[in-house]
C-alpha cells in the first residue's frame, strides 16, 4: 500500500500516454465482452440444456416429421420418465422482419418438461382451456408491447392463412440466459389445420430420463426401436442438439478465440512498448531508487505493478462498459435469444487483461531490475 503513491505518480506523469494505453485495454475488453455476449447468445441452448433431457428427431433431418404414436413406444423404453413434443411453426407476425420462434406444443406435458420457464398457474390454466390460446416469452411480449388478453395474428408460411391467437400468459426464465423469445400455442390447434398427409405428425420429441447416466443406453434403445421403420429416429441429448444448432451458425467459438487472440496479442505489443519506453525514460530515477536502498525485487515489482494496474484499470473499464451495454437490453431488436454477459466471461476477460499486464510488463521490469546503478547514474 505504501508504494501506491509512487506507482500512481509514475502512471500520471504521462497522462495522455497512460490514458491511451488504458483506453486500448478498455476497447479490447469491451470487444471481448460483446463477443462473449454473442457467443452466449448462440450457445445459450447448450449452456442451459437440461442434463436429463433427450431429444428425438427424424434421422433424415429435423424438418422431417415423426409420427405421434411414437410417444407411447418411447414411454415404454426403460429409463424414460416423461415425453412431450412440439412442432416448428415459422409464421410471420405483421412483417417478415418480426422474427421469433413459434412452437406448437402439447399443453398437457410441455410445461412440466421445462421447469426453468415460469408461468403463473392461472395463466397456464387459461391457456389450456382455450384452443386458440398462446403463451409468449417476456422478451417477445415486451418487444411487441403485448399484454395478456391481446389477440395475436400470425400468418402461416407452410400453411396458408392467418392464425389468430389469444395471449393468455407470459413466461419468464429462472436464469438470465434462459430464452424468453418463444411463442407457444396448442399442437392440437395446428394439427387441425394440417393437410391429411401431415395429420398426427410432430416435429420432435423431448423426453426426460430417470438418470442422466443412462443417456447413452436410452438413446441407443430409442433409435434401435425405430430402426428400419419409415421414420427412423436420431436421439441425442438436448445439449448436443443445441450445440449442433449453434454449429449451423458457424464456429462461433473459433471466431471468438481468433479475434480475442489477435486483440490480446496487439495489446501485448502496445503495452510492452509503452512500458519499455516508460522504463527507458526513467532509467535515472530507477537508479536513484536502487541507490537509496530499493532492492532489485522492489524495482521489478514497481514496474510490473504499473503495467498490471494499467491492464486492470483498462480491462475493468472495458468489461464494465460491455456489461452496462448488455444491461440496457438487446440492441439487435430480438434477433438474439438472449443478450447477457455471464460472470464467467467477465472473470476470464479480467484474467486475460491481468495476464497481458504481467507478460507485457515483465521484460521492461526485468531490465529495470537488472539496471546497473553506476552506469545509469552516469547517464543522468
Amino acid at each position, binding site marked *: 500500500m505504501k508504494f501506491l503513491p509512487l506507482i500512481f505518480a509514475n502512471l500520471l506523469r504521462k497522462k495522455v500516454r497512460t490514458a491511451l494505453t488504458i483506453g486500448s485495454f478498455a476497447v479490447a475488453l469491451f470487444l471481448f465482452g460483446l463477443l462473449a455476449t454473442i457467443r452466449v447468445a448462440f450457445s445459450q441452448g447448450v449452456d442451459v440444456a437440461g442434463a436429463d433431457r433427450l431429444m428425438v428427431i427424424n434421422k433424415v433431418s429435423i424438418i422431417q416429421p415423426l409420427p405421434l404414436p411414437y410417444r407411447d413406444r418411447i414411454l415404454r423404453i426403460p429409463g424414460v420418465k416423461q415425453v412431450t413434443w412440439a412442432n416448428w411453426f415459422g409464421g410471420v407476425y405483421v412483417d417478415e422482419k418480426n422474427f421469433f420462434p413459434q412452437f406448437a406444443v402439447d399443453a398437457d406435458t410441455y410445461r412440466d418438461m421445462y421447469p426453468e420457464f415460469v408461468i403463473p398457474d392461472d395463466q397456464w390454466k387459461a391457456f389450456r382451456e382455450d384452443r386458440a390460446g398462446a403463451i409468449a416469452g417476456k422478451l417477445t411480449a415486451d418487444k411487441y408491447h403485448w399484454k395478456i388478453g391481446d389477440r395475436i395474428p400470425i400468418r402461416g408460411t407452410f400453411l396458408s392463412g392467418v392464425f389468430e391467437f389469444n395471449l393468455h400468459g407470459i413466461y419468464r426464465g429462472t436464469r438470465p440466459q434462459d430464452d424468453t423469445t418463444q411463442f407457444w400455442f396448442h399442437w392440437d390447434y395446428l394439427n387441425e389445420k394440417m393437410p391429411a398427409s401431415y395429420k398426427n405428425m410432430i416435429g420432435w420429441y423431448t423426453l426426460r430420463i430417470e438418470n442422466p447416466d443412462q443417456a447413452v443406453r436410452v438413446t441407443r434403445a430409442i433409435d434401435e426401436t425405430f430402426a428400419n421403420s419409415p421414420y427412423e429416429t436420431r436421439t441425442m441429448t438436448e445439449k448436443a442438439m443445441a450445440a449442433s444448432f449453434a454449429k449451423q451458425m458457424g464456429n462461433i467459438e473459433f471466431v471468438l478465440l481468433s479475434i480475442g487472440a489477435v486483440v490480446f496479442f496487439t495489446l501485448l505489443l502496445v503495452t510492452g512498448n509503452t512500458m519499455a519506453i516508460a522504463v527507458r525514460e526513467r532509467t535515472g530515477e530507477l537508479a536513484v531508487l536502487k541507490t*537509496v*536502498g530499493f532492492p532489485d525485487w522492489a524495482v521489478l515489482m514497481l514496474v510490473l505493478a504499473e503495467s498490471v494496474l494499467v491492464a486492470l484499470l483498462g480491462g475493468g473499464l472495458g468489461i464494465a462498459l460491455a456489461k452496462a451495454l448488455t444491461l440496457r437490453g438487446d440492441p439487435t431488436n430480438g434477433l438474439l435469444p438472449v443478450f447477457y454477459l455471464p460472470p464467467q466471461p467477465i472473470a476470464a476477460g479480467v484474467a486475460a487483461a491481468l495476464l497481458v499486464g504481467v507478460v507485457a510488463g515483465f521484460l521492461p521490469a526485468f531490465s529495470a531490475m537488472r539496471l546497473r546503478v*553506476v552506469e545509469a547514474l552516469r547517464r543522468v
Partner: protein
Amino acid sequence: MRIGGGDGDGLIKVRNLDKKYVRGSEEIHVLQGLNLDVDKGDFLAFMGPSGSGKTTLLNLLGGLDVPSAGSITVAGDEITRLSGGKLTAWRARHVGFVFQMYNLIPVLTAFRNVELPLLLTGLGKAERRKHVETALGVVGLGDRQQHYPRQLSGGQQQRVAIARAIVADATFLLCDEPTGDLDRRSADEILNLIDLLVRDHGKTVLMVTHDPRAAERAQQVLHLEKGVLVEGAPSALRA
C-alpha cells in the same frame, strides 16, 4: 582521518583498494592501492582532475560498485564481501547520497521524495511522517513539503536531496559535487547545511568537488591523482 591506513578503529577503513576497467584490450586503472581511514564526524573533500577516480571512490564507498581488489570496512562490516540484496540493505541502512543534479523524482512531492528510503523499512505511516518532517525541518524546508521539485529552486531541490540522505539516519553521507549545479549563494547555503550536519548532528561526510571554495569547508582535503590519494590542506588550495 588518515591516508595510508593503520590499526585504528575508524568508522571507514579502506585497504589496498584497486579498481580497474577493461575496455577492449585496454586495462584502465582508476584507483590503485588506496588506503584510508575515516573517523566518525569527519568531513572530507576529495578533489582532483576529471577521470582521477573521485566518483569511482565514492561509488565504492557507497556500495554502488565493487572493487577489483582490496577491502572497505564500514562500522565493522566489510562491505566488499557483501553482494546483491545484502549490499543493497547495507546501503539503505548506512549511506546517504547527495548528487550534483539532485536526482529527485519529479512526479513526487518533496515529502514523498524524502520518504523514499523509509518505504523499505518497517516504520509505520505516522513514524515515517515524523522522520520526514524532522529531516525537512533540519534542511529548512518544513513549509515546502507538498511542493514538487519543479516548484523549488536548485538550492531548495538540493536541500530536499540532503533531507532524503539523512532521513534514515545514515551512518555517513556521500556527496558528489553537491554544489556543482548551483549559483554561489545557493552553494554556500548547501555547504552551511553540510557544516551543520557535521557540527551539530555528528554526521560523517565525504564530498567530491571541483570547487576549491567548497573544499575549504571540509576538515581535510584529499587529492586524487591518477588513482592515488594525496593529502592537501585548504590553505594550500587557497594559495
